């Protein structure tokens, strides 16, 4: 087994096991800690897929900021509910996610991902594509040619082609901050 494959399986098993723990543990604090493990494992996947930037962001924001936020929220909440209360929709709540999961697994197995990559490359050669840049998801041999497959390219995209969604995202954060203030502040 190649070294990469060993790493993959370690990450895969630990992330799935930790995710199961998040859902199944009754102690919400331990569940939160296991969530950090999931975040870190996903960061590992990003590294393996040559998406270093995403990996760094994942560790900084998810494993760092968000996990701490969740833990603070738990510590500041006086009576933490132990586990979920049962209700009459439980059978449906099991059935539908299982069906959805089955469908997604089927799709993931049934889709010929390599063929698609060829197709989309063929498309980019043949059809006149408006989009000149993509973020991630680029076949290895095309990396380097395309700005956006590396960090500086990503930054360039954010202030050039994608500056508009970037700015809208900043307004979104502003709206969220204003909302938090309005809803928490006394009259």
């Amino acid at each position, binding site marked *: 087994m190649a070294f990469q494959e060993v790493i993959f399986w370690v990450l895969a098993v630990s992330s799935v096991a930790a995710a199961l723990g998040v859902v199944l543990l009754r102690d919400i604090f331990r569940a939160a800690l296991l969530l950090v493990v999931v975040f870190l494992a996903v960061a590992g996947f990003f590294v393996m897929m040559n998406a270093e930037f995403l990996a760094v962001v994942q560790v900084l924001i998810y494993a760092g900021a968000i996990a701490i936020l969740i833990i603070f929220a738990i510590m500041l909440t006086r009576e933490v509910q132990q586990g979920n209360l049962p209700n009459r929709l439980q059978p449906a709540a099991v059935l539908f996610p299982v069906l959805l999961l089955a469908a997604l697994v089927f799709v993931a197995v049934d889709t010929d991902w390599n063929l698609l990559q060829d197709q989309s490359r063929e498309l980019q050669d043949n059809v006149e594509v408006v989009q000149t840049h993509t973020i991630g998801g680029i076949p290895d041999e095309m990396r380097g040619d395309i700005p956006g497959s590396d960090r500086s390219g990503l930054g360039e995209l954010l202030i050039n082609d994608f500056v508009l969604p970037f700015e809208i995202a900043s307004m979104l954060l502003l709206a969220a901050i*204003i909302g938090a203030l309005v*809803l928490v502040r006394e009259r």
Partner: protein
Amino acid sequence: MPETNLTSNLHLLLPEFLLATLAFAVFAIDLLLPANRKKLLAWVSVAGLIGLLALALALLWGENEEMYGGLIKVDSYALFFKSFFILLGIFIILSSVDYVGKHLSHPGEYYGLILFSVLAMNVMAASREILTAYVALELMSFSFYIMVSYARYNPRSNEAGIKYVLIGAFSSAILLFGISMLYSTIGVTHFADISATLANAGDASPALWVGLALILVGLGFKVAAVPFHMWAPDVYQGAPLPVTAYLAVGSKAAAFALMLRLFAEAFMPSIDDWQIIVAIIAAITMTVGNLVAIAQHNIKRLLAYSSIGQVGFLLVGIAALSETSPLASNGVMLHIVGYSFTNLAVFVGIIAFFNMTGKEEIADFSGLADRHPFLAAAMAIGMFSLAGLPFFAGFTTKFYLFTAAANEGLLWLAGLAIVNSLISLYYYQVEIRHMYIQPAPDMEGKLEPASAHNPHPPPVGGGAEDASRHSPTPLIIGVLILMVLGTFFVGVYPFPIVEALDAATSAILPGAGS
């Protein structure tokens, strides 16, 4: 990459920039005003929006240009919806003034958030790239999350806020998952590229179809299509009334502006695959919405279900889209316009009623026609129009939609839609019967001490709380008159609007010459 033209046509975004500036100005002025002068903020917002509308029409008329490498397109479709959303913002702010003064704190942020959401809706209608559209959709949703929970000392409003945030986050996740599936299979996110890929795809992979399905589900949650509708009644009931009106009209119109462009410009080549799915969702949505509406006792819940029914009608239009005919696309847009006038007429009537009495059960409206004949007449007109009776907007717009569906071979859907219109007539009639035939419960006005009555007409809004208990303020009446006139205008003489719609449709469906 072409770096040169990134800023050369930046002036086309001037309305958006100024709209953001206006929002910031409102936030800033809010800091300087004493607590009893906050009404000025509404006038600033309205004046700014009117100026923006004039500017947008003067600046962008006839423009047809892409920006940021095709990320958004400033065309007649975008301009049509820009004018529509700005007008909607004006009317929502005007109908909020009294309510906000009485029932809500932090008016500055309230008007600012409305401006933010108008900005987001404008971008949603203009964007031709799926992530840009998504981010704009999120900006709109966030503004709504906050506005829904704005009555923070009201437990129902809190519940509505939490439900809306959770369902909104959940549906955004589904939408994003769908977008990521789409992107991972075809590697492009611009509408034009998606369309080119789908046209060449032939036997496309299951992952692509699941991606498209998840996008449809995510958008279905946002517009409250059945079976993704269960949040709507609770959120509509809990939200402050003007926000409910805005939610019912604005968020739906914007989501359909996005959907229409997405389906017409990006997903059109594979219409054979999704048409039947959208048609089935449309059929379930209007049937469930209209049937459940019959059982409602609260006027906001009734209108929530009725608006779910209207979403079904709009989805009929999406299912009937065609590359060669402008009928369905025109129909969707016309129905959005007509539905907005109509629904706002009803909602503004309810707001006026609530400002006077603080009640919102259907039975509370008994005898309204005796006490406030104009109010009752305006609401009755709105409800007849919602049901689709002739001479009102609802008839004309539904006529367009159902004709489009029949032309595309969806006769069963058109038939079902007509049956549903008949069902809806029943529960609107119940409300109208309360207003006109049931005697008044004989309590309002008599419980008030006579000293509270102020003979002078109130100077609109919060300061004159006691006077406004007895009659609707002139402002609300003015808005109501405009909405009723709009309902008749769309219903009787829709041709000027249809002309604008033709231009808008030819921007998103170049093949559909009229």
